[in-house]
């Protein structure tokens, strides 16, 4: 048992758990005919509950998840799991029907019948409001607010954690400059999410669930949502302890855990390690490799992607919509790329110009 726990601690380090998550995610997107069945959903639920019950029996894991801040995250994990699987299940059902030449379930004559918002919808909403109010009152009675001592501008708690819904962002900040992960990327995320209905004008999937007809759109969205947001919240909440050091789920939060994580910039790797000379004084010469890599990624990669994969989307969506989508996808993929560069090469910044507060 001890060995299994050590193995889980090892595997849940960001590099392995994130890689594992992505592999499972790609497999799930590839085999939707298995994932979107009731059998799979029930099996996964039972498996998760059994493993979770076993993990809770560990005192260290229990002490982390039973913090008042962390209980809502456990509940929300269940809700995310349920809503994602349920949508995929309904999509899979419709895909089977469409493949057999039938209309989707939402398109059958009896489901095209309409009902009045009053009382059908309003009553449901009323009951939801009452149920939520009762839930919150009971919650407030049983769990005290995790208040701390008065704020002190010269002291920070260790670990200092953002509210749980921002922990994905905080985890993202480990790999980026605050200007990037704190301002630029969040703005792109918000504007990008607002822009989705204007970029994605494909009428397929309107009014009915489907996966096969919208494979790329659904996988791209779920990747950003599940892998880059929800999953990072899990790491930030449960696996980051004092000094923002990584701790496995069964690992005691020892403040003095020593982790070697010396990070260096691309300019230092190239000039000092590869060429063996000091960093040039001129910052543009110093950062020439970072500028080239950034240019390659943001500009030169676009025609390549278009030629290899994107041309059919470009024809269907139109040039402006297509390039906006590519820009958003490149922005999204910069996070996992940056994470892997940090894990494999201890790379801090590809382009490091603290003189201009510009670090990529």
């Amino acid at each position: 048992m001890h060995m299994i726990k050590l193995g889980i601690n090892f595997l849940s380090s960001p590099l392995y758990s994130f890689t594992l998550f992505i592999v499972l995610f790609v497999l799930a997107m590839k085999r939707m005919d298995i994932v979107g069945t009731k059998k799979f959903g029930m099996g996964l639920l039972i498996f998760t509950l059994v493993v979770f019950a076993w993990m809770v029996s560990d005192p260290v894991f229990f002490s982390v998840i039973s913090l008042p801040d962390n209980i809502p995250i456990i509940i929300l994990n269940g809700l995310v799991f349920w809503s994602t699987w349920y949508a995929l299940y309904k999509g899979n059902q419709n895909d089977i029907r469409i493949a057999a030449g039938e209309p989707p379930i939402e398109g059958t004559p009896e489901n095209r019948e309409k009902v009045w918002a009053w009382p059908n919808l309003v009553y449901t909403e009323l009951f939801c409001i009452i149920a939520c109010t009762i839930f919150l009152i009971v919650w407030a009675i049983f769990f005290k607010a995790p208040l701390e001592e008065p704020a002190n501008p010269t002291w920070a708690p260790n670990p200092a954690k953002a509210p749980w819904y921002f922990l994905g962002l905080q985890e993202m900040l480990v790999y980026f400059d605050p200007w990037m992960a704190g301002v630029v990327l969040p703005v792109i995320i918000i504007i990008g999410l607002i822009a989705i209905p204007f970029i994605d004008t494909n009428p397929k999937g309107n009014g009915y669930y489907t996966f096969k007809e919208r494979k790329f759109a659904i996988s791209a969205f779920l990747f950003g949502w599940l892998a880059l947001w929800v999953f990072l919240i899990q790491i930030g909440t449960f696996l980051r302890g004092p000094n923002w050091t990584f701790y496995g789920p069964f690992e005691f939060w020892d403040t003095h855990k020593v982790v070697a994580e010396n990070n260096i910039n691309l300019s230092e790797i190239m000039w000092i390690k590869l060429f063996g000379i000091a960093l040039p004084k001129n910052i543009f010469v110093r950062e020439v490799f970072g500028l080239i890599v950034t240019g390659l990624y943001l500009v030169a990669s676009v025609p390549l992607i278009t030629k290899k994969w994107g041309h059919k989307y470009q024809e269907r969506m139109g040039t402006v919509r297509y390039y906006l989508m590519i820009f958003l996808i490149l922005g999204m993929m910069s996070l996992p790329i940056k994470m892997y560069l940090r894990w494999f090469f201890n790379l801090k910044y590809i382009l490091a110009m603290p003189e201009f507060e510009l670090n990529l």
Partner: protein
Amino acid sequence: MSDEAKTSLNRREFFSFLAVGWITFGAATAGLASLIFRFTYPNVVFEPALDFIAGVPGDYAEGVDERWKNGFGVWIYKKDGRLVAMSNICTHLGCIPTWLPAESKFKCPCHGSGYYPNGINFEGPAPRPLERFKIFRNPEGKIVVDKTKVFRYEKGEWNSDGAFIDS
């Protein structure tokens, strides 16, 4: 006829009522707005002074000294007799790093940035070293730290006048 004149307003009366009403309303709104504006400023500010007297050089042993950290947000670092005053604000996102004597490094609790005792960043996402404050001796020979003047390493300012004192 005269009764009817009393119950209805003539034009002049209507406008004077209107003016009084609007002036009252405007004054009340302005008063409320000024109260709200006043509320955005704290009644008492506990922020420490931006410069302070930090004893004499002999008070400090070699290494990092934390005595001014809680009061003024400054670490004094002494190396080979040279004293510098370091800011305790992480250059990544402005958290307060912790001094870990056992590991001999500063470590930020927010995103894991690490600094050597001299303030140079070496791990985590911090893009540049900790900032240093102006430090000088006043006529009585006492050390004065002035937080209004900042010296940044990446701008090559750590060797400038006022960035350190030799004892």
